Each structure stands twice: as C-alpha cells, then as structure tokens.
C-alpha cells in the first residue's frame, strides 16, 4: 500500500524538484562563481559572501527587509484580528460577500494600487488638500509620499487581505463555545483573548504572518515607487545585480544569504515559541 503511495507521490516530488529545488540549486551554485570581465568563471570562491559580510550596505538592506516584514506583520495582525473575527461571525451570504470584498483590491494589480495611493498621498493629493481645507496644516505634508511611512502604509494595505484570510481560517476553526466557557469561568475579555482566542487561532496567525512577511520582503515595487530615497531594497539590489550590473554570482549570493537568514529566523522563532506555554499547547494541538 505505502509502496503504491510512494509511486503516486512521485510526480508531485518530480515537479517540486524541477520547479523549486533545481532553480535554488542553480542559484546556490552561482553564488560561488565569479564575474571575470564579461564571462562568468566557474572556479568556486567565497569572495561573494565575503563582500556581503564586509559591506554595511548589503547587511543594512537585509536588516531593513526583515524589519519591514516584521513591522507590517505586526500591524496587519493588529488590524486583522478584529476584521477576521467580524467576518467569521457572519452567516452564509454575508460572509462570502465580505471575503470577496476583501479580495477585490488584489484583482486591480500592483501598479494601479500604487498610483492610486500616489494620488491620495501626494503633495497636491487628496489627503493634503483635505488637511489644508480643514485648517489642520498650513502647507502640504511632504512626509506623506516618498517616505518609509508611505511605503509601509501601502505595504500594510496591500498585504492585509492575506493576514485576514489566515486569521479568518483560524477563527473558523475556533469553537465559539470555548470563549463562552472562559467567560463563564470568570475570565474578563482581555484574558479570554490571551488564554483561549490567541492560542487557538495561533495557527492562522502564523500562516497569515508567514504569507505577509514573505510578500513584504519580496516586494520591491512599493518601496521603489512610494519610498523615495528609502526605496532601495535588498530585492531591488538583487534585481540590479542580475540586470544592469551583470553580476549574477553576487546577486545569487545575496539571495542565498537572504534565504539562509530567513530560515535561521524561522528556526529561532520556532525554538522561542516552543519554550512558551502557548507553543507547547500548539504543538500538542497538532500532535
């Protein structure tokens, strides 16, 4: 039986190897090559990694990517919890309608959304005009556009639906009678959330958080078009190295470093979580 199962799984494994692992292996191999004038020499070397380690710019870019990801995950989680809870508590048609509304902006495309935000946030934009008209400010706020504030605002806007979907699935799996039981036992609302709602929706939070984090780290358009001087990201740097600079080995090395750091962070987070009561209960819940 299991032998047949193995054979049936073979095509899936083959696709995974061909589409995921093979490109990564190629990338990994390239990271040890070197550009020799206009050709790529395949003599293995660690020079690329040495350059990254020695460059404050690259280290800062990777650090910023992670910081942005963490900040956006935190903000989307804060906004997403009440939204997901609200959606999960609706019945039938209303729930479907709300979920559809949540996803509609995703159909409009990155560029359209980014330019829509430029119209809203610009010096002559909707918000500045409104504030001027209300007399809240004397002259247009420049910080609204081409700043880290602008790019993070739009990153939150862009990826909030992914967080809400993850949390919504978490809430769907949460039995409402359990929160009722917690109230029955005397727990005030804050404690009901901390001891029942949070641990039992944690799988949804992790799923949503992972999606948002990866998407934010990988998004270079939003910071580039809205972040102004702060708009250079590690992804745009990799893009430039592969494109204009024709330094595939260095680009690959940065990509690999990013991946390795990401893996390390996940492992550390998992380890830290496993040391808490929350994590133990989660692990037991999946056992």
């Amino acid at each position, binding site marked *: 039986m299991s032998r047949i199962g193995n054979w049936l799984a073979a095509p899936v494994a083959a696709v995974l190897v061909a589409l995921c692992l093979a490109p990564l292996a190629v990338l990994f191999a390239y990271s040890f090559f070197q550009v020799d004038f206009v050709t790529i020499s395949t003599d293995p070397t660690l020079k690329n990694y040495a350059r990254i380690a020695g460059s404050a710019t690259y280290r800062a870019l990777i650090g910023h990517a992670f910081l942005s990801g963490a900040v956006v995950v935190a903000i989307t989680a804060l906004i997403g919890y009440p939204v997901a809870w609200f959606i999960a508590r609706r019945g039938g048609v209303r729930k479907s309608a709300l979920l559809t509304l949540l996803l509609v902006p995703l159909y409009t495309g990155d560029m359209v959304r980014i330019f829509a935000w430029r119209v809203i946030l610009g010096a002559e934009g909707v918000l500045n005009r409104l504030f001027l008209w209300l007399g809240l400010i004397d002259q247009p706020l420049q910080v609204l556009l081409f700043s880290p504030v602008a790019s993070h605002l739009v990153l939150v806007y862009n990826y909030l639906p992914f967080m809400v979907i993850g949390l919504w699935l978490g809430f769907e799996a949460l039995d409402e009678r*359990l929160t009722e039981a*917690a*109230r*029955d*036992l005397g*727990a*005030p609302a804050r404690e009901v959330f901390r001891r029942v709602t949070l641990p039992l929706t944690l799988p949804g939070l992790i799923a949503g958080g992972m999606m948002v984090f990866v998407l934010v780290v990988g998004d270079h358009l939003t910071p580039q078009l809205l972040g102004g001087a702060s708009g250079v990201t590690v992804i745009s740097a990799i893009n430039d190295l592969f494109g204009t600079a024709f330094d595939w080995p260095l680009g690959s090395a940065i990509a690999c470093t990013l991946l390795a750091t990401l893996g390390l962070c996940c492992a550390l987070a998992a380890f830290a979580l496993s040391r808490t009561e929350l994590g133990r209960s*989660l692990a037991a*819940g999946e056992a």
Partner: protein
Amino acid sequence: MPDRPPLPLLRADALHKAYGSYHAVRGVDFRLMPESYVTLLGPSGCGKTTMLRMIGGFETVSSGRLELDGQSLLDIPAPRRPINTVFQSYALFPHLTVEENVGFGLAYRGRAGLGGDGRGLDRAAMRQKVATALSTVRMEQMAARRPRHLSGGQQQRVALARAIVNEPRILLLDEPLSALDRRMRRDMQIELKDLQRRLGMTFLHVTHDQEEAFALSDHIIVMNAGLIEQQGAPQEIYRRPDSAWVADFIGGSNVVPGRVLALDAGRARIGTAIGEVTAPARRGLAVDEAAALCIRPEQLSREAAAAPGAATVEAAVTHAVFAGSGWQVELRAAGGQPLSARLGEAPAPGETLRLAFDPARAWVTRGAAAGPRA
C-alpha cells in the same frame, strides 16, 4: 413559633426573551431554593436553554426580573456571576491539560463582583483546590492528559470539576448527558445527584428527557412554547399533570380526551369515548370544558382482577411487546382511542380484552384544546 420558609436563592419574575418578533421565553416566574436539584424539562425549542443562558449571562433579558440572593443579576456580566455552567458539548479547552482546564477559573476567583471576597488565591491553594475537585469526580489519574485523549464520560467529569471547583452559588447543566450512551447516562445520573447532595450545591439542569428529570430532581419545571406548563415535585407532576399536554409529554400515561359533565368536591365527571368516569380532578376546571382523563398503564388490569367499583373498558389488542417484568400491550378502544396497558400475561393479537381501572386513581386534567396554547 413556626420556622420561616427559607429564602429563594434565585428568583425569576415575568422573565421574557424576544429575538425580533420571535418570543423564546414569554414571561416565566420561578424560584430556585438553596441546595435543591431542579430540572427545566421540555421539548426542543421550548425556551429552556434560553432560560439557562439568561441565568448564566450569555443572553440579555428582554424584560422581567432575575435576582440572586435578592440582588438583580441583569447588569452583571457573565464573568462576574457566581454561577458556572457545564456545557452540552463540555467545551473543554483543547489546548490545556485536564488540570489546567479545571484550574482555569480559579485565577479569577476573588475578583470584585458577586461572591468575590476581593482576595485572590495563591498557587498552592489553587493546586489543592484543583486536586480536590478532580478527586471528587474521580479523575485525579488523568490530570496531565488533554481532553482529546478522554472518553465522553471522562470529559463530562472534567467539565463538572471545572465548574464546581469555583464553588458557584448555582451550577447550570445544559443537557449534560445527551452525548453519552444509555448505560453511561444512568451512571452519571446517580453521580450527579450524589455530587449535588455531597456538595450541598444548587443544580439547575436542562433536559428534554423525562426519565432523567424524574431520576434527578427535587423540583421539575415543565416548559412548553416559552411558558411554564407546570412545576412541582416529580411525583406531583407524574400523578397530577396540570394539562393533557404535560401528561402527554411526561409520557407513560393514557390521555383520553373528553368533556367535563359535572364537578363536585375535587372530583369531576368526564364524558369520553371510553365512557363516563368520575375521578379526582385538577382545580379550575369548568363544566362543559374540554378536559382529559389520564390513566397510567399500570393501573389498567384484566377485568377479572378488578376491585369492586372499578370502571371498565373494552379494547382490541394491536401490539404486545415483552418488557421484562411484564407485557407492554397497545390496544384500541371504542372511537379508535389508543390505550396502553402493562399486563402480566401475553394477550393474543387481535383479542378483545375487558380492562378495568380504579377511577379514584385516575386523574382529570385540562384538555389539550382548552389552554391558550395548543
């Protein structure tokens, strides 16, 4: 000097719950005496669970009064009521161990509110209380397990321990035995009653199972369509149902519709399809009103064994089932009136029997169509 009657623990006056235009509970009055075991009995949709949820604080009260020890509960949210619930599905926290489940509520003991003394519990005292509660329900061996690794009966016990450990003034039980098999249900009924006596706690138990209500209660509140049909001691409800509906719902009784012909000193003469009978009657009946004659199956016997003064009825056997201690026999009397009797010997199918009963032990009550609610 006579003892003053004890004060009720819980008082509900004209309690009413409406969801939009649907009225789940339509003005209900009752008292819960301290240290009593009370059941709310009724078919599904009669409003009994809504009542329980209003007392627990999970539904707001549309109108009426609800008082615990003379203090209104209406403005007190669920977490601050000294009342705990055993939920129908147990609602144990799947991510916590048995011990953590039972200790859950103790962290909030002593918070200001009804029954709180403003002091919390230290860890040692909490652990001691959890251990005591677990041994009360004989689950001390399972303290480190998680709910999913327990059987239905064990989960039930943990749910009980989790509630009683908080020493609530009232323990609410929402159909707690409905998920258990028949045998387990019997055992748990005995344990519940025993527990209530030992703890001297007040239990309010919701069920749709008459047998369960009879087995457990000091006092039964029979509900139908959002109103109380009758309340009283189990024997009272069994022997003297207040309406044909109660007699029918309690079951086990032959309810023969008829009309009151005459009334005299607590007795009524009722005309029915199986003849005219004079029997003890509920108060408040009027001559010519629709009424019902209730005869319990064990009161019917073959005519030969009848005492003098017995009423008789002829009926054809339609079905007979061996029921251990005797035969449960279904019959059809004049006018197609179905009857059931409990006889010592098996009748032949289709045989016409002359059955007798003592009218003094029968009961005349309000007819099905007489009340404002059919």
